[in-house]
């Protein structure tokens, strides 16, 4: 289907193919995540599992505005970012199963997905830490006179620690090409935003550093995409970092173990009636960008891919025992007696 001038204008210049691809990614993330939940319940996945359900539009809208050469570094809620960057879902599920074929050989698990060949520098599980690493990547890009930018993801709860403010200052001071993406899902674990931070419009925190910032509806992939394009253009042209706040909502618990005492079932149901995936689906169909049949086909294919990743992970060999003695150092050490 060719895009009419009318739709491309309302869709930030994106072609129908690109829009359908965005929908495909959102669906794949959703179905992959629901499979993860199921596999956690069946004890195929262990440890902490932080699902991205409800936040799909953020990953797809922001990462969609990057070039493949651009860099991504993220936190432990990383499945959505990995899938939007195009990491192999087989390797991702195998990682969650702790298998040798996993993206980090089964050593990292859910919180530490990685694929350096795709400029995806990993998920990190200590709040705030990777914001400073993003500044390091930005510094290297500048020193090496490279045209790429780096995008770093984190939550609203991660804007209260010192590292966040250090990163704001370092990046603005050095005019580093860093796009900070704060996914404000209204909770830090189970602590409501009004309880954990004094300024609840996170984007306003940038003003203390004279940093450019913007707040966007993170449940709208197109608005998120447009805001990110602006940010990327600004950062790539050497003007400095940008703080993007994408307001969203997570439908599932903080982790798979969360009893969710801090919010009502009604609140979650209320948000689910505005499910970003459903809203985007309807919008694309109503606007004639995608047909119902195409949507169904995408959904079926995503199911096949997600189930395929489970089968792949199931059949893969366990993590290699060589890691019990190797890998701690790039240049191994030996004690002497």
């Amino acid at each position, binding site marked *: 289907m060719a895009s009419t001038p009318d739709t491309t204008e309302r869709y930030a210049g994106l072609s129908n193919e690109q829009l359908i691809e965005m929908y495909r990614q959102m669906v794949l993330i959703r179905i992959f995540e629901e499979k993860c939940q199921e596999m956690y319940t069946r004890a195929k996945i*262990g*440890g*902490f599992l932080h699902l991205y359900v409800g936040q799909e539009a953020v990953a797809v809208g922001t990462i969609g505005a990057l070039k493949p050469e651009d860099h991504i570094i993220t936190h432990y809620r990383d499945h959505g970012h990995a899938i939007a960057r195009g990491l192999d879902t087989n390797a991702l599920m195998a*990682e969650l199963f*702790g*298998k040798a074929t996993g993206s*980090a050989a*089964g*050593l*990292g*698990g859910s*919180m*530490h997905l990685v694929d350096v060949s795709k400029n995806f520098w990993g998920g*990190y*599980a*200590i*709040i*705030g830490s990777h914001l400073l690493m993003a500044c390091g990547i930005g510094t290297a890009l500048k020193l090496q006179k490279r045209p790429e930018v780096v995008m770093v993801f984190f939550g609203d*709860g*991660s804007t*209260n*620690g*010192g*590292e966040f403010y250090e990163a704001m200052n370092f990046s603005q001071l050095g005019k580093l090409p860093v796009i900070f993406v704060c996914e404000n899902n209204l909770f*830090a*674990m*189970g*602590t*409501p935003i009004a*309880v*954990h*931070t004094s300024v609840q419009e996170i984007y306003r925190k940038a003003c203390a550093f004279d940093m450019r910032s913007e707040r966007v509806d993170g449940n709208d992939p197109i608005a998120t995409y447009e805001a990110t394009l602006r940010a990327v253009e600004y950062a790539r042209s050497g003007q400095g970092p940008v703080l993007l706040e994408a307001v969203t909502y997570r439908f599932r618990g*903080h982790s798979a173990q*969360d*009893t969710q*005492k*801090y919010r009502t079932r009604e609140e979650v149901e209320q948000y689910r009636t505005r499910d970003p995936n459903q809203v985007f689906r309807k919008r694309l169909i109503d606007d004639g960008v995608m047909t119902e049949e195409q949507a169904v086909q995408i959904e079926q294919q995503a199911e096949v891919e997600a189930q395929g990743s489970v089968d792949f992970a199931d059949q893969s060999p*366990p*993590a290699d*025992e060589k*890691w*019990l*003695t190797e*890998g*701690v150092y790039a240049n191994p050490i030996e004690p002497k007696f």
Partner: protein
Amino acid sequence: MAVMTVREALRSELREQLKDDRVFIIGEDIGYYGSTYGVTAGFLEEYGTEKIRDAPIAEAGIIGIGIGAAMLGMRPICEIMSVNFSLLAFDQIINHAAKLHYMFGGQITCPMVLRTTNGWRNLSATHSQSFDPMFAYVPGLKVVAPATPADMKALFKASMEDPDPVIFIEHTLMYGVKGEIPDEPYEVKIGESRVAREGKDLTIVTYSRPVHLCMEVAERLSKQEGIECAIIDLRTIRPMDMSKALESFRTTGRAVVVTEEWESHGVQAEIAARLYEHAFDYLDAPIERVGFREIPFPYATNLEDQVVVTPARIEAAIRKVLA
């Protein structure tokens, strides 16, 4: 005698402490969330936001607030969800909490208790560490790590009554462990070890969760082969009470040290050194140590199972020392 879990024992002592106007708890997700490991579940509703202070994710801030409040006579309980996050507060803990009393010639005290957790299970490299030796290394800190519900309760009380900063180490895999709590009032002092099991053949020196693993192995060896291992639970690692361990070691001449930490440069090295220093003449065999294999924790279960302290590894060490 009431039977309680470690969690229940802690909850009951926290309630006792909260009766004191000077006491408040500050930490992440202790209130609205309902507490990560359930220790303070329901407390927010019961005690309100002044006493149960949900903190932003800012560990240095949590400890800094604890120190400052303690300086003015409060009795803060600072909760750091997992010991891995305490690293962000090391400046506050080591440069400040541990130093105030000495550095200002005794004018300032810091009666703060830092509750935190060791623990692991498929949590990978940054969420499965133990920093016991890093805390115990620092003059000015007291480090308490009990293994039983009764000791948790009594030593938490002792920590709260102490005028110095105390690092109180709990364990995510131990909250459900049950034990008896005496009905009559009882006391355990900081810096007093305990004989968890008598035995004439070998001395196991340990503390915290491995106490239970060692008991399991010792009971089995006793029943099946008549080998009698003594188990000394240190309960506190700074100050460290080696008197009971040495007393036992002087009769057995053989020792295994079991702790949850990487095997080099740690508390177990300190324990072994003190045994060698104070009972060298009684030594019948080199001391064996069991700790974490010296790699960051891998996520995969098949690997992690080979990194942690297990009954099988404890038994192998016992056999080696007895051979």
